[in-house]
């Protein structure tokens, strides 16, 4: 690495993931050395690998304006929309060592190009369109207030680049999970005043195993989105909408969310033992007995009164305030 022209350019080596699903058994990483200018984008570096080093290097690109979502890759594990990301910024962040990889190495077809069929299947599963009986010969336009429009304005900016989808660890561990991009789309159409499929779509997002309750709350999606949509914020709104429209199923996940209030009303704190018993039900508790025994042995479950779980939780000061605030502020019920 060297710096020339007063920091205007830097000589760096880029490692790029190379793989051809038709001919290669395993991927490899190849290095390309080049002078990088201060205004160059990651897309420029992808182009230069292809144009100056190896014409067989493959990646998707189209609009060059952050609109088509084709050029999303990962740079040192960071979801990156190549046409929006300045290269110097990442060189600074990663000490001048850049590693280009496809959004998902598991789904690589050729170099940076991945098979995005899972993304599109999930997207299609949430009915990502306005469901409405539309008059084929309307005599006036459908009006929405600015306030109504603003509800979905930012979620509508999604360019389907897959940056959040392929950064989501929940999806990695559970292929059934719809993922942040599809759930953002579900939110976008659910809150559209023209849409008539509110409950139907919310039910899709409420399924255990695939819906919002499988989100692990890591905020990777919020960090990954190049359009600053904050998908997990939309996931939270979908959770709330499920209760508002009374489509939230009564199950371990919803009881877990609502059950926090049980301890808070009694102690101000969460009741750690009660939340497990209440969420799982007494029959479901058996799964946790072994863990509970271990926690008891190490002192993680307390015995203040001589009997575990009884009088083991301290109370906050001014508990009455919490009780009253819950009473007057609670807007949803399970």
């Amino acid at each position: 690495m060297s710096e020339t022209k007063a920091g205007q350019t830097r000589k760096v080596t880029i490692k790029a993931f190379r793989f051809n699903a038709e001919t290669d058994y395993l991927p490899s990483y190849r290095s390309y050395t080049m002078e990088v200018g201060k205004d160059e984008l990651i897309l420029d570096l992808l182009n230069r690998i292809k144009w100056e080093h190896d014409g067989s290097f493959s990646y998707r690109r189209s609009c060059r304006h952050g609109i088509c979502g084709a050029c999303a890759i990962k740079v040192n594990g960071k979801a990156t929309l190549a046409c929006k990301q300045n290269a110097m910024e990442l060189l600074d962040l990663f000490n001048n060592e850049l590693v280009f990889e496809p959004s998902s190495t598991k789904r690589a077809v050729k170099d940076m190009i991945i098979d995005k069929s899972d993304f599109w299947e999930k997207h299609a599963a949430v009915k990502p369109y306005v469901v409405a009986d539309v008059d084929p010969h309307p005599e006036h336009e459908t009006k929405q207030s600015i306030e109504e429009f603003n509800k979905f304005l930012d979620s509508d900016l999604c360019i389907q680049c897959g940056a959040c989808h392929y950064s989501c660890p929940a999806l990695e561990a559970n292929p059934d999970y719809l993922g942040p991009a599809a759930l953002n789309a579900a939110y976008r159409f659910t809150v559209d005043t023209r849409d008539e499929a509110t409950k139907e779509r919310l039910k899709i997002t409420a399924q255990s195993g695939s819906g919002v309750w499988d989100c692990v709350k890591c905020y990777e999606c919020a960090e990954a989105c190049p359009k600053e949509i904050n998908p997990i914020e939309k996931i939270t709104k979908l959770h709330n909408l499920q209760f508002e429209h009374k489509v939230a199923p009564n199950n371990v996940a919803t009881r877990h969310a609502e059950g926090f209030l049980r301890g808070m009303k009694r102690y101000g704190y969460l009741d750690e033992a009660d939340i497990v018993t209440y969420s799982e039900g007494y029959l479901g508790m058996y799964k946790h007995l072994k863990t509970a025994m271990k926690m008891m042995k190490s002192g993680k479950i307390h015995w203040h009164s001589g009997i575990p779980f009884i009088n083991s939780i301290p109370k906050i000061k001014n508990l009455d305030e919490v009780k009253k605030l819950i009473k007057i502020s609670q807007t949803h019920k399970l």
Partner: protein
Amino acid sequence: MSKQLHYALFTGCTAKQSTPELLSSTLAVADKLGIKITILEEASCCGASHLQDFDEFLAHVLNARNICYAEKLGLTMITICNTCQLNSAMTKHALDTNPELKARVNEKLAEVGLEYKGTSQIKHFLYALIDDYGLENIREKVTTPLSAFNIAPFYGCHNIRPSELHSSSNGGENPYKPTSLDSLIDALEGKPVDYNHKNKCCGFHVELQANHTSEVLAGNAMVDAIDNNADLMVTPCPLCHLKMDTYQDSVGKVIGRDIELPVLHMPQMVALALGCSEKEIGLNFHVQKATHIFSEAKRA
């Protein structure tokens, strides 16, 4: 240090229940460093990122109430749990940027004689130590260097993401390349372990409803740390600690590996290096055997 640091401590629920060692080691570290702590005994649960799924407005009201008590004292509120930090900071951000929401929340708080003003900062104890107290000052106080240990820093999601929310309170930590915990380990003369999963999710929040996902995420992180020669893991988040310390047997079964890795709370590690007592550090409260770390540190 010219002026004594003084913070309002939001303990969260875990430190008051299943991880008493987190509270005792935090107080011991503060005592050793001459940091004054006032515990917010009025503060309730933050909702742990679950209550907001049920009722986002109610979660804001309850978190705002907690912050009110730090404001009354005129102090910065410190947290010792990443999720407490996230939820408190999210409420602060929502109220400070949305006057209409702030007014609605204050209407409720007025019923119990409180008002949220937005005057207190909220930061995790990790960043209070690094940014306010200073790593060099901590380094000077080390009596038991941790040079015997390869320590894997596990950052926990809710201190580093979303970065935009946290940047004012976490020293602008980059979520793709966090360094604070590594530098702290280095200041205590331990050897920081570099591994890919240090900034990944532990799976705690779906422990009940998506158990397999939870176990896989915890397992991936612990196996990565072990494969990079970690003797122990350290985390600023008690929820990461609970997931990784308590479930090593079941996680090992899902991942197909034997996992034996002590997972320390960040303040326990600092307390160890500052020469706090065995009782204050509380390694006996761990499910995965960790008591040997105290004697090994002393021996080295």
